[in-house]
């Protein structure tokens, strides 16, 4: 039991942002300046996001599913979640989102959540 405690604690720490939003999930126009991808990779990531993620997480905010632009997940965990799914979220294999597109998507998602959140 004691050997399991550290990883379990780590998981709980990592998972805690999933249960409690860290900041309002709304980002970009009309609340804040539009989120403009700062690099070609982020721009490519935005297109992947719109094709694969926007239906359930519109604009990165909550919709059918929880918000993902206010959760400080590390890049490796975002990749893992996309590849394996989580809860009701389906898995997206490399035949659906190739590795280079997944890299671009992660870059865009991290950029999205760095955009200041509105207050109110």
């Amino acid at each position, binding site marked *: 039991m004691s050997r399991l405690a550290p990883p379990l604690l780590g998981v709980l720490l990592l998972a805690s942002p999933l249960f409690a939003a860290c900041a309002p999930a709304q980002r970009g126009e009309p609340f804040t300046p539009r989120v403009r991808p700062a690099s070609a990779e982020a721009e490519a990531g935005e*297109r992947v996001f719109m094709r694969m993620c926007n239906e359930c997480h519109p604009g990165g905010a909550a919709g059918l599913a929880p918000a993902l632009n206010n959760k400080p997940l590390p890049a490796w965990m975002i990749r893992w979640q996309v590849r394996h799914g989580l809860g009701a979220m389906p898995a997206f294999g490399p035949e659906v989102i190739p590795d280079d597109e997944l890299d671009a998507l992660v870059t865009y998602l991290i950029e999205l959540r760095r955009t200041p959140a509105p207050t109110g």
Partner: protein
Amino acid sequence: MVRGLSAVLLVALLGGCYDLRSSDGGGMTAFEPPRRYDPADVAVPDGYRVELVAHGLTFPTAVTFDGRGGVHVVEAGYAYGEAFLTPRLLRIEPDGSAVEIARGDERFGPWTGVDWRDGAFYVTEGGEVGGGRITRIEPDGAQRVLVADLPSRGDHHTNGGVFGPDGWLYFSVGTATNSAVVGVDNWHFGWLKRFPDFHDTPCRDLRLAGVDYTSPDPAGGGAVTTGAFKPFGEASRPGEVVRGAIPCNGAVFRIRPEGGPIDLVAWGFRNPFGLAFSQEGELYVTENSYDRRGSRPLFGAGDLLWRVERGAWYGWPDFHGNVPVDAGDRFDPPDADRPVRVLAELPGEPPRPAARLAVHSSSNGFDFSRDPAFGHVGQAFVAQFGDQSPTVGKVWEPVGYRVVRVDPGTGTVQDFAVNRALPPGPASWTGGGGLERPVAARFDPEGRALYIVDFGVMTMSEEDGSQPRPGTGALWRVVREDRKVAGGAGEAAP
């Protein structure tokens, strides 16, 4: 190793959590009239201003402009929740008051669209009871039906009604069901009690896989088995051919303004609600996609914006966009089996959507910006009615209740007009005076003001379904800060 273990434990912690949480749709709220109206509660990008044009309307669904730029709206009459009122065509005066031009028969509501051409209005009659119609209405109120008995007596209706650059009037007919199988959900809608034999009709012959679904029989008790494109309680056979016919469900048609036979443009849609032509003269439609309800529910299927190719099949009921419904776990409902394809042979390969919009957003009437002074030329401004959860499925937070701006070239979607509260929702949910349920967005003839038709309050509950509230609809418009547009009901109203 630690990462992998952490991820596995995370799944153990969160797997299955989705269905433990209750839905939080924007309609799931109490409403005490009167509705408040306050343009200041609607956020738009810097440089734009929101104005209230008219209020106190009952279920408005569309706006158009006569030859002199006069603003006109249609009130639906019928609304989900089995509200049967009188559909009307209204002129909106500069002071925001409404003058009745014509009224329809409540059997032919909901009126869902209106356009103006060569001195007359062309109204799209949804036809919940009497079947869909397209009717020409003179400014003095005289009416002439151009086509009738369109198969609109189910979940979805005859929609749209917009003139193309070729001089034809384009309109659509939605499907009777969520995903081609009549079920108990249709009983709750109300129509299965009225029309127990009604079902979807394809536009072309389809060969079925013989996939059937068993459901309770709310009329006679016990259980019944129903196949795709079949009446409730009628099974299908593997290899059986269902005959196509015109008119049919889930299709876009066109008709000459003087009447005559309807012409099939494209098919295989679910509920193609909004129609608009781009500056290049290309037809686009918004499609309300699958719900998580009925005998064949789908999960995670967002609304779509399509560029319409003549003669193409758009995938319903075996695809969402260009993705098959049985693609991995993509559309698996958390509490039901993976959707199974009901067609033995595909009538075509669905194209790729122009944009993917939020699940349950009910992305409806839209228009393209064409004036540089307004901005975003070539982009589509789409009104999102908002979720009808819990009837259509669960949502984490309110979805829709806004106008989004879509770049059809890249598929990028951005909010354009949305209530200021965080998280945004309908005004009745946030407690503000902003938007309730935007159902159509259309530019004025000059392209300088974007008019937003706001259906009004429609609350939702598990027990009572949809509860639309008469007299709570409104017409808004968005203009550039530096532009003045004559008329309107004022900055705010009680």
